[in-house]
């Protein structure tokens, strides 16, 4: 599944595919597609923002800064950030091992990376509970603790950096590493000065996706973290609680915060992509 995390706007190698301007029937087609997209995605999301502001800016700020919500935001952002740091290291290591190493069982490792992406999030929670919950054979029980949030996020974001770095590593030209060696650079220096810089955009793209996913995660935390207010409650749970309490404006306010993060991630991905294309 190496292409699941490549943004829709990019192509692996862009050929000179001619584009045509829209004719009558294709304009209609575009109109229908955009209409569906608006009805399903754009308008509902816009409503979230407008509902958030329905209590005025004051109402918006009040919700965001209420102690329980602030605590949820802090928990979510900090854990997502820490997990992303972990993923930057582990993701690169795993991608390296998958591309550069050969050993029995490597295929299993490759398939295992995709499991967190394909597994239903509620099942992920259950899966983690079996090893890290009350019935743990290891005796490790993180259920209802802050550590469980970290664990769940690490699980669901595992594939992102691996799958963005893998194709770049595969395409890396061998002769550049040979050139570096012929100029006297040790293996470590070659990695640090030649290989790593070419991986940075891919790592950054994967990190952005990992962070965005971490912020928005819900299903895997439901059973695992216990959703204890001010302790193990993440923003998405907060939003759900607001909804269940019939408080759409506050729910929308917290949701808008998350949307801002999502948009920031998309912009970041687009920027990274353009920079890479320039470097050629």
């Amino acid at each position, binding site marked *: 599944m190496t292409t699941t995390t490549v943004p829709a706007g990019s192509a692996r190698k862009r050929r000179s*595919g001619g584009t045509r301007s829209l004719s009558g029937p294709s304009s209609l087609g575009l109109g229908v*597609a955009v209409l569906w997209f608006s009805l399903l995605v754009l308008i509902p999301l816009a409503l*979230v923002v407008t509902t958030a502001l329905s209590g005025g800016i004051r109402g918006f700020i009040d919700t965001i800064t209420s102690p329980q919500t602030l605590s949820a935001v802090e928990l979510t952002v900090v854990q997502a950030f820490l997990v992303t740091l972990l993923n930057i290291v582990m993701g690169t*290591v795993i991608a390296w091992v998958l591309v550069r190493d050969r050993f029995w069982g490597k295929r299993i490792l490759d398939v295992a990376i995709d499991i967190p992406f394909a597994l239903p999030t509620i099942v992920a929670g259950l899966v983690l509970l079996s090893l890290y919950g009350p019935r743990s054979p290891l005796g490790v029980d993180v259920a209802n603790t802050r550590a469980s949030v970290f664990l769940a996020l690490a699980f669901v974001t595992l594939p992102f950096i691996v799958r963005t770095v893998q194709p770049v590593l595969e395409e890396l030209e061998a002769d550049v590493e040979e050139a570096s060696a012929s100029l006297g650079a040790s293996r470590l220096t070659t990695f640090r000065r030649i290989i790593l810089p070419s991986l940075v955009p891919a790592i950054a793209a994967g990190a952005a996706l990992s962070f965005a996913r971490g912020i928005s995660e819900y299903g895997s935390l439901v059973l695992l973290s216990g959703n204890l207010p001010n302790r193990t409650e993440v923003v998405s749970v907060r939003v*759900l609680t607001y909804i269940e309490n019939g408080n759409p404006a506050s729910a929308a306010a917290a949701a808008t915060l998350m949307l801002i993060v*999502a948009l920031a991630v998309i912009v970041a991905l687009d920027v990274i992509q353009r920079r890479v294309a320039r470097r050629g």
Partner: protein
Amino acid sequence: MASTRLREPAPVRWALRLVAVVYVFLLVLWPVSLVVKYTFADGMTALTSALSDPDVTAALKLTAVVALSAVAINLVFGVWMSILLVRYDFWGKRALSALIDLPLSVSPVVVGLALVLAYNPRTGLFGTRLDAAGVQVIFSTPGMIMATAFVALPLVIREVVPVLSEIGDEQEQASRSLGANAAQTFRRITLPSIKWAVVYGLVLTLARSLGEFGAVKVVSGNIVQQTQTATLVVESKYQGFDQDAAYATAFILATASVICIVVVSLLRPKEES
């Protein structure tokens, strides 16, 4: 690959291998195998009793209906949108292309909230009008299908767009110069060339649709046997202390997703050839 003389020293290689394998083992492989173990702890009883539980069977049926509908919708929308994005030029193309990635970064709970705000029968922007026409979206199957289609929206497009770009449109131009109209060109030239990318995207969409939880929870109201999908039933069984049923249903869902991954990993070489 660089010459074999340029490799990390053996201890470094082994260390990296060990770290990667141990991490994935502790995080993914062992926990997943434990779920399998708990499911079959009493032999097949957990599975058979789960499958004879009407809550569970209703949920599985509903999941199938919702997932397949979402897959069908995204097949049409996905292929259509990919062609528009790659073969045509229009104002706002770049923005649209970036916005299409939005569903991947948005929290499922936010997705649910957004759809509720738009389609709920009392205050929804479209919901009030639809309710007057007798169409129920929220707390009903259509809403769940929409929520599922929403979260999986980009998946087909992200597979098809790169392939369409890379192939280029020369074959389509040739087809047109030989007299074929747009529909014929699409059916005979374009579609076959993106066949594997589409299948790939659909399998991913299916996996994602089967597994959707948060958005569907908000939109469906989680009413047992009526608007409860398989994922929701796992939660309610676990919280109802029926762990066996929870694990059995989870196992069924997990198996379905693993099958999807395996299919995808077998298909990838076909896509690339």
